[in-house]
């Protein structure tokens, strides 16, 4: 499988009155053709800024530095503002958490999608409308003809997000960046939207970068995942691998703090103590070290290296390095529980 997007050492810094906020601190990853890649992280982890930096959609005060951002082999990090305009929307499209603020409130949703088509192609008004209706059908908007003439405020949150998806897909982009598209929606509607996402990926072969804070959604939708914290990638692995053998204490902590539907009520959730780091003044060592129950001195002082754990699984943790092998594995009790879960899973199948 070839990579449609390859990012090397991306850094984004916001210069504010209080100092420099280092939102993204050296992120490298690739997105394969036709793949749904999940990016998981809490608020402030840098996941949204990272994805918006790819197509320079951040405030002008932000400074983006990148080794390279290769889209289909071309380094778009060196593109001029004008060149980048031809990429945005057409090659790399984006949808956001709140569709209401992305849609024009005084224009019918049909006209908004049609406008997009007329910007980029030469079609008659009739052909445009037919194409918009076809797009609406593709994202499973019922009564597409009627919806075409409606305004955003007349639609539900789920419907608006579908319109956004139709808008994003109008130009058949190579990559769709979806930034928490289902966070504001109810589970029932989220389920419907995820289904449409899967369909797009399988029918159109769209590569999707799916940003979320919800590990469960990632398990359901993605084939690979990056876990972000403090502006860095802490762990990346295939979905099966990360749930079968999570290696970073932060990933383990995230998994232990969500109750599963089978969770025994008597057992306590294991929260991660403390709160996320202040990116104005990020910790010198591993950003997770101040909250990590297994942190050693080295973790607080030196940035952790990315350790290759095989099968394309990487984890940025000192405890996995050569010299730390003799130490007990962090979160022994949690990992034990996870392994029990895994055995149970295999039993039920």
């Amino acid at each position: 499988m070839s990579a449609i997007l390859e990012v090397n050492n991306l850094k984004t810094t916001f210069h504010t009155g209080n100092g420099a906020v280092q939102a993204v601190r050296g992120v490298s990853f690739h997105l394969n053709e036709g793949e749904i890649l999940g990016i998981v992280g809490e608020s402030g982890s840098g996941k949204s800024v990272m994805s918006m930096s790819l197509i320079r959609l951040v405030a002008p005060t932000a400074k983006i530095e990148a080794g390279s951002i290769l889209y289909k082999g071309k380094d778009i990090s060196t593109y001029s503002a004008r060149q980048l305009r031809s990429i945005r929307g057409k090659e790399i499209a984006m949808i956001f958490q709140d569709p209401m603020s992305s849609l024009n409130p005084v224009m019918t949703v049909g006209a908004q999608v049609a406008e997009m088509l007329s910007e980029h192609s030469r079609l008659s008004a009739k052909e445009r409308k037919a194409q918009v209706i076809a797009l609406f059908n593709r994202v499973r908007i019922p009564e597409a003809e009627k919806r075409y003439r409606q305004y955003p405020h007349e639609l539900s949150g789920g419907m608006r997000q579908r319109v956004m998806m139709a808008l994003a897909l109008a130009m058949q982009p190579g990559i769709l960046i979806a930034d928490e598209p289902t966070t504001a929606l109810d589970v029932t509607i989220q389920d419907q939207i995820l289904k449409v996402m899967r369909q797009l990926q399988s029918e159109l072969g769209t590569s999707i970068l799916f940003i979320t804070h919800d590990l469960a959604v990632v398990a359901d939708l993605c084939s690979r995942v990056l876990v972000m914290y403090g502006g860095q990638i802490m762990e990346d692995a295939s979905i099966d691998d990360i749930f079968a053998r999570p290696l970073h204490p932060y990933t383990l902590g995230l998994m232990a703090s969500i109750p599963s539907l089978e969770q025994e009520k008597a057992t306590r959730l294991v929260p991660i103590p403390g709160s996320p780091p202040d990116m104005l003044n990020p910790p010198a060592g591993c950003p997770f070290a101040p909250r990590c129950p297994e942190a050693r001195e080295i973790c607080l002082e030196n940035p952790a290296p990315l350790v290759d754990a095989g099968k394309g699984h990487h984890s940025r943790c000192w405890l996995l390095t050569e010299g730390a092998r003799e130490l007990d594995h962090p979160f022994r009790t949690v990992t034990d529980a996870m392994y029990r879960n895994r055995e149970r899973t295999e039993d039920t199948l």
Partner: protein
Amino acid sequence: MSIMLEVKNLTKHFPLGKGRVVHAVDDLSFVLKKGKTLGLVGESGCGKSTVARTVTRIYEPTAGHIFLDGQDITSMNQKTLKPLRRKMQMIFQDPYASLNARMTVRDIIAEPLKAHDVTANRKEIDELVFDMLALVGLGDEHARRYAHEFSGGQRQRICIARALILRPDIVICDEPISALDVSIQAQIVNMLKDFQNERNLTYLFIAHDLSMVRYVSDDVGVMYLGQLVEYSSSEAIYQNPLHPYTKGLLGSIPIPNPVLARARVKSEIEGDLPSPIDPPHGCRFHTRCPYKMDICMKVEPLLEKQDGEHAVACHLYG
């Protein structure tokens, strides 16, 4: 088991003018047992928060009765109600909007003491506030700060301190963790559970996160368009859901386990929640129900007990 809060046929309608009415809550009945947690779940717009605000008399109920610890508070005037309000406190979803930005944390947490004339002695107030801060895992040094200096999780701790300082019997938690990060949610939920054990608190826990509701609740009520469609112990509802809506809701929760996620058979709910201004006739869920029968479009099913406490409002079980 004694009953802390009982709601009988509670109805709350919001008039829109021209005879149009939002049926936010319709004929809802449930009991909250002392020291237990009742979880209310449902999609946004189903009336969960209206229930919270009506049982606390923030909204005046249109019809029905609310009994707090045996006393009917439905039409009690504000003066007689005030001492009873000490028993019932609330925690809201948005810890950013529910704290006054211009008050110090000390004054925020102390405000209920003043409102209920518990004490005016500064030293006593300070002591009580510091106790509360310690209880929710904050320090004395936080007392002089303002809300904007805290993270979401810390703010929610301040909200909890404010709600508990009067030593209430019942706390209405209206989506207390929805706005928080996953790692922080567990901190807050564990804290709420500890307080319940220590102080025999009763919770009405409103949320749309079904796995969290199952984890914290003893009983669960599932709401749809202002009505209760299923009500049971949380074990029974999650292991043996009866109502097609409950099944669909449970089926749409993403599972944090890729192997199980692929293996499960999905029962999906199509479409959106209809408008509560003109709710569908008969069973309100029939527009989205995969098991719809003729009777469902005409006759409204009643919430009837099937198996012990397990009640469901559905013609499939009639």
